[in-house]
């Protein structure tokens, strides 16, 4: 396929939001369906709006925003779409279960929102929606569904998705427990620049070590956007220097934060294609047997970098 690739940007500004949804309070077996409760719904929506406002106030507005697994109630989908369009950023967010009342099955999904004029950098009114699902439920999640009367079941999405975000690089996604799926990691190897993990994960340290190791074996930026209820959101890049590797990390539970972080794109792409060689290597060596399946773009270093248009121009 001959398709002209846009030059990659130097760095991608990412907005990582941790909301403090309480699983116990939000999904209650007594309600008869795995649907976020009204109290947690309004609380979550309040936090999401506060976080989005905080990110919009940044000088360097994020181009992609992440929300943890199950963070967005389905009742607020349209409102959130409007919010994302007004900021004109991509959003990759975890959404509350999609319920099928006929078969009593629930799907755990994430959503990618692409504002219609995002690439033209003009304000948009509508956004294109792309859904991606979770393949394997966490054991606690699966047994939680059985507590409902009548019991609900988990519906898996067998596919693995790679989103091509043009100048921002190739993006792999996984929802929480799928992060442990070694075949998924194999599929992503050499195909992505970034791996975004949206999670509701209690064992924070496990995900931290996974992120550190996968960032070297898959060779990409790994971003974990975990729920603020447990904390532990993390950004890891496969830098040579140990002190640079962890770009951002939150420790401690019940913390609500929204933070902008920079992810390397162009240099990393060069490293993936084996152009980052010693002695002055910025990145770790490529793992054995690594082959890049991303089209080599050979981006000119002085390539036209996208202009940052701030939401509010100072008067």
């Amino acid at each position, binding site marked *: 396929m*001959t398709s002209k690739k846009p030059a990659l940007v130097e760095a991608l500004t990412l907005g990582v939001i941790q909301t403090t949804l309480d699983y116990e309070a939000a999904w209650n077996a007594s*309600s008869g369906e795995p649907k976020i409760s009204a*109290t947690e719904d309004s609380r979550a929506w309040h936090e999401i709006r506060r976080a989005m406002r905080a990110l919009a106030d940044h000088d360097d507005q994020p181009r992609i925003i992440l929300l943890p697994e199950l963070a967005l109630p389905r009742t607020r989908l349209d409102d959130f779409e409007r919010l994302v369009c007004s900021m004109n950023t991509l959003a990759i967010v975890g959404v509350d279960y999609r319920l099928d009342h006929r078969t009593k099955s629930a799907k755990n999904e994430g959503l990618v929102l*692409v504002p219609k004029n995002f690439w033209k950098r003009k304000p948009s009114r509508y956004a294109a929606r792309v859904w991606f699902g979770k393949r394997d439920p966490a054991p606690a999640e699966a047994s939680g569904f059985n507590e409902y009367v009548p019991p609900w079941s988990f519906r898996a999405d*067998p596919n693995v*998705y790679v989103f091509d975000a043009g100048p921002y690089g190739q993006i792999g996604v996984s929802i929480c427990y799928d992060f442990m799926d070694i*075949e998924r990691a*194999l599929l992503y190897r050499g195909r992505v620049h970034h791996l975004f993990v949206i999670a509701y994960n209690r064992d924070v340290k496990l995900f931290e070590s996974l992120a550190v190791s996968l960032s070297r074996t898959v060779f990409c930026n790994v971003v974990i956007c975990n729920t603020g209820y447990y904390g532990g959101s993390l950004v890891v890049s496969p830098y040579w220097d140990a002190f640079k590797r962890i770009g951002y990390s939150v420790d401690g539970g019940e913390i609500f934060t929204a933070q902008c972080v920079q992810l390397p794109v162009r240099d990393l792409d060069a490293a993936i294609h084996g152009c980052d060689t010693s002695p002055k290597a910025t990145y770790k060596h490529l793992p054995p047997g690594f082959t890049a399946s991303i089209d080599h773009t050979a981006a000119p270093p002085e390539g036209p970098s996208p202009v940052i248009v701030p939401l509010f121009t100072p008067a």
Partner: protein
Amino acid sequence: MDVPEAEMPERTRLAFAATRLARVAEARLAAPETIATRHGGPRQSRTTESDATNRNGTATLLDPFAGLTGINDSQIHARLSGIADRVFSLVRRVLHERPDRVRLWTHALSIARRLGATGLNLLFDDIDRYARDPVNRLAASYIRGNSYAVLAAETVRAAQLLVNTNAAGWRRAAALRSLRDIASFTNRGMPDADRWFVQKSLDQLCVGMYCATVLLEQSPSSSHLFRERLSQAFVDRGHELLASGNMPPNLRVALAWWGCKFDLSKPVRRASDLIIHLGTLVEGLPESDDLWTFFPADAPIAPLERIASATGATQAKRDGWWFDALMGRYDRPDIQQVAALLPAANRIQTSLSGSEAANLLPLPVWAEKIWGSNDPGISKEWRLGEWTCLEIVRQAALLLSSTAQTLDQEYLQRASRNDTGTRYHCAHPLNFALPSHLIDTTAASWHEWKQKLREPGNGVLRRVPLRHQIFDRRYAPLVVSEIGSAQNPIRGLGLCLFALLSRSFLLPVQWNGPGHESMLRHLPQLLRDEITYSSATLGILEACLQPRAAENVLANLFQTWNPKFDDDTEHDPVSLIDAADLARVISIAQTELEANQISTFNQQSRQITPVNLMHLTDVDWKHYFEMGPA
């Protein structure tokens, strides 16, 4: 603020201000927690919240508003409804000064429903006061009639919102307040209707009340929220209008249609509970056949029998409709009796129920077997994954293209004969068949599965014998012309692909009636809301289903005649000339998928779905599919 009269007349200004104000109030209602913090109320701590949810059953019974919005503070709710009421009384004040603004009378009712304002009684008192001036008598009747009709629709919408668990809590709370207000209005007793058109709107209001009651009754989880009932007199009158034999049949069906339209604003595949309920009330009337035509999969026996035994033009080219009607229930004896009435239906009945031992199964039966195999793991899913769906449609396209004609003398003769009786090879899924052994056969890897599907040579897909083939207007092209007939099967093939990907051979019900061609444009989006497929497949679906894509084939001819051609088709889907062209484009999409497949242990084959986010908004499909300007 003073705006010169010449810029904006005062009455427009007032109406404009009122509607703007309603927007602002809506924003306030949507953010109730800002009120709590602004007035120094203590921020709710988690403990009280979890208490409230633990006692979920009782807490919501005590205060439905707390259950809907999750805010357990009656003071805040009082303040919110105060905001709504203030806006509504302001609108009433404008109407008091400027009663000639009919649009604003209409807006007032929708504002009341959206914000959940109370004061309908006062609004209708205003109309009465207005009517006291003899000059205004006719105008007042007009406004009253208009208001009843608007209120009828708003009642149904409020009930829809209240039972919709995916609507935001504050919207449902507003709908509940508004329904309570409507109940108190109806409980004043049935108003008199002084003119025929007021009576007509009043009847509509009664039907609206009936629909709202049905909606609330059908949703037991929401009905306890609204315990005060809408006035029984209104509901009974609504039921009478729909179900009584004394009413003119046309009116009954028209009112049933009016109620159905509320559930048809978005593309849906099956009739909703409300539509089935309303339709069943009129199913005995032959006039209801047109209504049931839209819902083949849900039509009861009586209309099916009438449609089957009807003769004439309505029956023509409707074989595929019977496929929709029979698909899910061909094994029921009563349905079998109906199917026996009509040769076309009978034919479909036999091919659907066909002997289990048959070597070849029709595509829908084959696909349903895989979807319904209820695989505990996920090891079989990929058998009808995106790649396989594309492969089936590619083989179908190749089958149909082999019969394509070349532009020679014979072709021109046939084209000029204008023979309308010609039967095209219609790309209905039932016209294709696949070997049954593929359903359970083991394939250790993607490679093996591909070989099995593509053997020998052309592939496994076959066309069913001509006597079993059916014709379906919906799968046929919009413009039937002999010129360029090679283009004809493309749309049908696109619909087949849509059906395979979305795992249902039912098309949106709106598509079942004539004159709803614009429906096609929404299919790729509809599909995207259900599952995710690669962006290349999106391009193929658009090329098959967008009317513009087919028109561009002719429009591009102009380009060859006129050098100063201004190309406005840059962002249009690729134009496909014939089925072979479609097969070529599909193989491009398949190549991309194949580069992203791996086979792993335990015969698990896995697929990466590549989605280009830039292709979702604006894309140069021609470049992608290597077309170049024609």
